[in-house]
Each structure stands twice: as C-alpha cells, then as structure tokens.
C-alpha cells in the first residue's frame, strides 16, 4: 500500500507534491482504469497519491470581461451548470461518458491525461485556451497546444499541478460540434469535430476548426483559418476543395479496435465539408 494524502488547501497540495513522485488524483476516472488490476486485486498505485478533487481553490469558476477561468478540478457536471462556460464546451461535455462519470471526472484530468480521444481538448484548442501550472510559489501559463506534447504526454513537471484553464471570451454565431462514438453515451470518440465561426452579413470574421481522435494530438491549423477569415461566403464556397485538401494532409488517423483509418479520415473531411457548407455559410 502506498501513502495517500488529502491536503486541506492548494498550498498544502503543492507542498506535498514538491516532495516528489506523487500521483495527482482528481476524479480518478482515468487513473482507476489505467491502474486497475484484474480479478479483484487493489489498483496498482506505485507512488504516493495526492487527492485533489475536493480542493475548493481548484473547483472555482470565475468570469471577467476578458476571460473565463475554470478550476482544474471542476467536474463535468459543474461545468454544465455554470452559465459563463462557453456553449460549445458544454455541448462537448454533455456528450462525455455518463452522468456518474461526469459527476467525478474533471476537466483538468481530461487535459493532463492527454489522450488523443480526450474530448475537451479539440474544443479547448479551438477556443484558444491556456493552462496555468503551479509549483512552489511559481506559476507558468501555456497555451493548450504547447502543454500537450503527444499521446499521453504533457510538459507538466513532476512537481507541477494544473490549477486553472483560461478561456478568452470570443463571439461566434455558428457552431458545429460532432462526436462520433460507437454508441449514444459512454463511448470513446472515434472522431470529434469542432467548428466555430462568426459570420457578419456575408463575411466570415472569425473561424476555428479542430479535429479530435484522428491524429496523435488535436488537429488545428491557424494558417488555414487565417486564409478563411475575412473572406465573404462566395469566396469561401469556392475555396472548399482547397480547404479540404489542406486538412486532408494534416489528418493522420490510425486503425484500431474502434475504427479504421479510412473511416476516420473520410468522415473528418465530411464533417468539415458539412460545417463549411451547411453550418457556416
């Protein structure tokens, strides 16, 4: 058996963490699966565990004129019931897992787990989210795409903790979020598509496009978005084949026990096409 700590404050959590080698345990919905052992044996936690899911400081959501700040240990259920949380994030969160898991699973856990199938990631990429990492009196802020390194890996140091997620306010009037799982709920994504746009009269003033589960990390191209931005819808209509072919080069899915490469790729582009034709324009 390993030591388990239940700190009373964020400061205490950070202090214990700097003792090194501890496993941060928020909702535990990823950890308990990853570390489970067969046949009724206790899970395999090989290092001390720090419980953080109960810490008030990490469960706060604050809203300012510029941005919304979400505590890393906010559960999905908490996000769904807060009015400042962006609609597209709520749409995404409402399709994660099932009510029981949404009561425990946290947004910070989803980010730090860095799974290619982590559902909040493409939405957070699309919303230009950043994360705040804390250690012993020091903090750093990173854009989400700099935080995630690859499947299951982040730049988080052993003594660091994710405290908050910052989402700058931005306005959109076109949304398209689609999660393709195997069943209605409680299924990991084969593909997810996030599309956001701000359309004024005939011009598209802002656009964000992100794909989840079809490459080692989220696919988002600020270059292609820049090419679309500011154009009028007739021009964009003409660009669709070109846009599809750009993304086609970036989307590099695998075949596995849940789906295959061809499906993931074709359907990603179908969804993009649908967003451009049926939702954005």
């Amino acid at each position, binding site marked *: 058996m390993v030591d388990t700590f239940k700190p009373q404050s964020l400061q205490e959590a950070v202090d214990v963490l700097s003792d090194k080698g501890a496993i941060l345990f928020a909702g535990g919905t990823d950890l308990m699966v990853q570390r489970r052992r067969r046949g009724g044996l206790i899970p395999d936690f090989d290092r001390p565990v720090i419980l953080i899911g109960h810490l008030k400081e990490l469960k706060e959501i604050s809203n300012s004129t510029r941005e919304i700040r979400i505590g890393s240990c906010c559960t999905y259920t908490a996000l769904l019931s807060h009015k400042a949380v962006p609609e597209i994030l709520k749409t995404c969160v409402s399709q994660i897992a099932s009510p029981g898991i949404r009561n425990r699973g946290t947004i910070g856990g989803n980010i730090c787990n860095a799974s290619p199938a982590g559902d909040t990631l493409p939405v957070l990429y699309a919303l230009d989210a950043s994360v705040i990492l804390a250690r012993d009196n020091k903090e750093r802020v990173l854009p989400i795409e700099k935080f995630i390194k690859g499947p299951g890996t982040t730049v988080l140091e052993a003594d660091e903790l994710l405290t908050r997620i910052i989402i700058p306010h931005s306005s959109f009037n076109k949304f398209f979020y689609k999660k393709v799982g195997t069943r209605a709920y409680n299924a990991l994504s084969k593909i997810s598509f996030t599309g956001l746009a701000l359309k004024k009269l005939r011009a598209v003033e802002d656009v964000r496009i992100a794909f989840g589960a079809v490459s080692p990390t989220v696919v988002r191209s600020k270059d292609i978005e820049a090419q679309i931005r500011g154009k009028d819808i007739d021009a964009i209509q003409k660009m669709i084949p070109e846009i599809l072919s750009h993304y086609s080069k970036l989307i590099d899915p695998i075949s596995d026990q849940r789906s295959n490469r061809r499906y993931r790729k074709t*359907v990603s582009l179908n969804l993009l096409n649908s967003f451009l034709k049926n939702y954005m324009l």
Partner: protein
Amino acid sequence: MKNKISSSVSRIDTPEKTGGKASYIADIKLEGMLHAKTLRSERARARIKAINCPNLPEGYFIIDRQDIPGKNSVKMLIDDQPFFADGIVNYIGEPILLAVGPEKETVNWIIENTEVEYEDILPIFSVDEAKDPAKPPIFQKNNIFAEYEIRKGNPEKAFEGSHRVFEKEYRTGYQEHIYLEPQGVIGTYDDGRVTVYGSMQCPYYVKTALIHGLGWNEDMIRVVQTTTGGAFGGKEDYPSIIAGHAVFAALKTNRPVRLVFDRAEDIQSTTKRHPSIIKIKTALDSKGTIIGMNVDITLDGGAYCGLSPVVLQRAMFVSTGAYNIPNVLVRGKVLATNNVPSGAFRGFGAPQAIFAIEMHLNSLAENLKMDPLDLKKKYLLKKGDPTVTGGKLREDVKMPRMISLLEDISGYRKKKASFHKKNARDLRGIGISLFLHGCAFTGSGERDKIKAKVKLRKEDDGKVSILVSNVDMGQGPQTTLRKIVSKILGIPFSQVLYDNPDTDRVPDSGPTVASRTVMIVGYLLSRAAEKLKTEGKTEVTEEYIQPPYIEWDQENFIGDAYPVYSWGANAVEVSIDPDTYEIKVESVWGVYDVGTPIDEQIVYGQIEGGISQGLGYATIEVMESREGGLMQRSMTDYIIASSVDFPGAEKRLIENYYDYGPFGAKCAGELPFVGVAPALAAAVQNAIGVPIEKLPVTPEYLLEAAEGGN
C-alpha cells in the same frame, strides 16, 4: 380474449435482485475457501515444451492435467476439449493450469511468474485456412467438426431448368454474451463427495462432465446452481470446464476453491456466437418465380467442437426462413480454427441463417422490382406445407394476420413510398423481417436425448415444491413455472416453492436452453400438477412423452425438425447520418406468436431484451479476431447498447394455442432476438440503396459499401 394465466404478476425474484440481496457466486464465502486463477495460453497454436513455476509459498498449489483423476476431456458432443491443455494449446486463452491459495495477491503473483515455453505450430485463423491442406489440421484429418446436407424435392433439376440464378453471400461476426455476472464456480470436497456451486444453465451437464473428469460414481457428485446473473447460452457448456477446475483443485487442496472470472478474462476466453459465411443461390423461372434454392453454410467453430454441430443443424433447419421454397439443397459445415471456441448463444444458429435468407429475399425482390414484403408473402409457410426438412406444418400459421398488424402499426407502406422521394442528406429507411423459431430440442431430441423428468412434492406445511433442474437466469421461470403449478392446483402463488436446482434434490428435467423451459418442462409440471390434484398423492414424477405426431429421422434430417414453431415479424425504421454513416434506430415494432404467453410482462421483457441485444448484434457489437487474438478485449472496446441507444419497441402478441404446451404456451426466449438484425439491415438497405450483406452493419462498413473501393 386474453387467457387469464397471461395477466402479469410481480416477478418473484425482483425484490431480492433489485434490492441487492441476491447472493451470486462472488458473494459466497465458505470457511477456509481458497482463490484460484487460471494460467492461459498466450499462443494460438503451440506445443508446450515446458512450464516453469516459481517456488510456491506454503499453502499454495498448482493444479494441472496431472491432478485430474478421470479423463482430461470435457464431456460434450465430441469430447475433444481438455480441462487443462494436454501438451498442446489451440487458442489464445486456453486454460493450462490453476494457481490456488488463500491470498489473491499471491495467487496472482504465481500466475504472473509462471513461464511457459512454447513451440509454435502453423496456426489456422479462418475457415478458408481451415480448408488449406498445407496446414496441419486441428481436428481429425480435415478440420471438419460436422458436415451435413438437407434435401427437399429435386434441387438439381430445378437449377437445370431455371431461367436464371440469383446468387449472394452473407457474413456475420462474433457476438459476446456480456451477461452481467461473469462466469464463476466454487468446488468443495467433503466426506468423499464433491459439490460444485455455480452460475449456470445446465446443472446436469456439469454433473455429467464431472462424472467423466473425476471418473467417479454419480452419487459422489453434487451440483447446485447459484442465482445466475444472465447467461444467454454462455453458461450452457462453459461452466462444465471451470466446474472441473474448481473440483480438481478442491480435491488436491482439501479446501473449498472459488474460481470467478473478471470481465476481461470472461470476454477473452469464453465462447462466442459463431461467425458465419452463408451463400444462397436461387433458381428462378422465366416469370421470376422461385423454383429452387441452394444454401451453403460455413461456421467458424473455433478450437474445440463444443456444441457446434447442433448450432449448425439449427441454422440449417431454418435456412429457408419462414418460407415454403420448393427444391432445396442445404449444405452446412463447421470448421476448426485456432480461434476462441464458438458456442451457444440465444438463437443458436438461427440468427445467422435468418439474416442471410431475409437479406437474400430483400435483394431478390429489389431485383424483381417488387416490395420485399410482397415477395415474401408469396412464399410464406402455411398450415400443411412441407418444411425444409420435409416435415408437415400442423399448426395454424398466423403470419398473414401478424403481418397486416405490423404493416398497420409501423406504417410500412406509406413510409416506404415517402422515403423513396427523399434527398441525399435525408437518409431514412424502413425494413421488415419475417421469421420463425423452432421450439425446444430438434426432432426427437427431447425423447431420445433429454428424457426430461419433473417432480412435484407436497410438503408437510401444505406448500408444494417444484423439483426441476431448470434455472432462472433472468428469463423468468421462477415466476412462470410457479404460476403454472399454482393455477392448476388452485393454491396461491406464494404456496409454491422453487429453489435453485440442486442435483441431490431434483430430477434431470434437462438443460435450460432452446427456449424449452416453459413449453417442455412447464407442460410436464402442468401434468404433474393435474395428477397431484386428482390422485391425492404427495409426490408426483412426470416424464416426457413425445407428442404422437412427431416423425423424425435424425440420420437424414427428414421430418419434423421441431415439435412446433413460434413466429414473429419485425419492422425497424432508421435514419443515417449522411456525414458519418451512423445509424439511428428511430422505431422498432414487433408482432409475435408464442402460443399463450405465461405472463405477458415477462414475454414483453424477453422481447425488449431480445430486440436490444439483436440491434446490438446488428450494429455496434463488433468483435474481430486477428491472428487468433480478439481485438475487443474489454467493455471499453466491445460496446453493447445502453438504455439510450435504441427506442423501446412497440410490441404485440397474437395468441395461438398449442396443445402440448402448458396453457397453450410455445417458446419465447430466443424468438425475439432472431428477426431483429435482418429488419435493421433491411431498413439500412432501404435508406442508402446499397445491399447489406454483412453483420454488424457498422458505419465503417457502410462507408465502404456506399463509396466503394479502398
């Protein structure tokens, strides 16, 4: 007019199950009980050169083939499967030995630190490879577990004289049972007797297997069923293997031994529904009338024979579906491969065959520019018609009435017409399937093989005990059999006792399979109850007598393949996402003839469950074997439906009294499963206009079917 027996009562087992009070095998702890864990083969096919176990701590044991007092083979149809690998392994997951001891951690440590040295043998991963003479056969000389032929009329002549031939091939995949409660048993050894407690469908199958494995006299062996959390056929044959394991361990250690699987182990090493390849050729005359049919069925039996020959027979017996087709040749084969053994699963061969014939007729109808339903109606079996085995249908076939009811409630015709005019982004479809299910054992099996015996006994306090070997695995006999007996005796339901079967107490009334419990065992109980009432005895034993009309030649498969059939018709409506090819089931309808329902609510429960399981089989339950290893190894990857995936079904029952069933009841357990997949597939075919020839119908498959190529 509704028969009074059909009015629903509260299920007797509901309070203890929903209240968490029911005691399943994993809840039972006996004094001094040891835990067991199985070392399994990691190779699909290999010779075991050596097994190196770590030094065992005090109180820990290894149990292997040397600890089997009798024969190292599990008694089934052909006894080719060993309890523990006999020098050779034939599938990934095959049991090699057990580690047993007081602490799970240490038992686990022993398994993890035991090394097996293998020498690979050229493996066979598919039915095509099974026919390849370059690979050393797994089973006998040709890898064929069973091969049969059925003829009706003169198929050769029909094909010779045909104007044209319509030919298609259909494939279906694995299905895993995912009963809520994984496999588990406890074995004990006391005073020279062994007892097995376990989650099972067939206590006497387990007993027979132990008689052989132990080489003991039958009165030294006792088998007790514990409250069983689902089975679906998965606990028909498999418990015999692990009952052997637990008992051999109990003998060696002189302590009770419990062997309970966790989910992943259960998924990876227990039986599955047989994957199939079915080719159908139809001979047509110049007017497009069907004059003959050839059906060729190949099943992947996996590494050991198990129940495969009977699964094949049952597939063949319904291979022309609910139709009277003249001049038929049906050929069937089950082949051995180095895949996990296939076994019993609700429907038992029929779902594969019904899918193939229904889809074949759907495509043929499109080819003939007819609505599938109109084509099917033309050939529907009716009273007096010959079945595919040349038996005579003696029962009233109520299908015409059932079909018109189904057309009404589903709005099939109108929808079919309106879905025709849709645009490319509005993919909607509706499909219908017609089907039947043979009740109980095939042919004279009930008389010649099963020889069921039931007993009723009046206890001192006036209560009456039902003594049968059939189990409640969730399907309801604790309630329905009590209802039958209490109604006849005119005593309250609560005055009838029916404990989980214990072979020391109950006669062998046969296995809990083939939808036979109410129709066969319930009927025997009804007769016993009549005698108990009129003859004033305290105990009545009733034995199976075959209904006089049954004629069956088991050698040549000629005659009445089943005592009677239950019938059904399904309609399914779907919409398909034009971007992702995801199928959404919008509505499901079902009309059924199960004779007299002994409790409507229980039959509706079977229908809802069967539909949900059938839609899962048809769409999301994907299981594939790659080089002998299953790709979907846990419930994260093997997806079954949840309550929000499919809508509830609109369901109707049509009464049709059967003289040899209790209160007129026929079979109901498997029927609701068998017709679902073809109705779903027909709806998808209607929606996207591409023939569906494979189960499950995944979005990945639809993408390929719709866009073609690679």
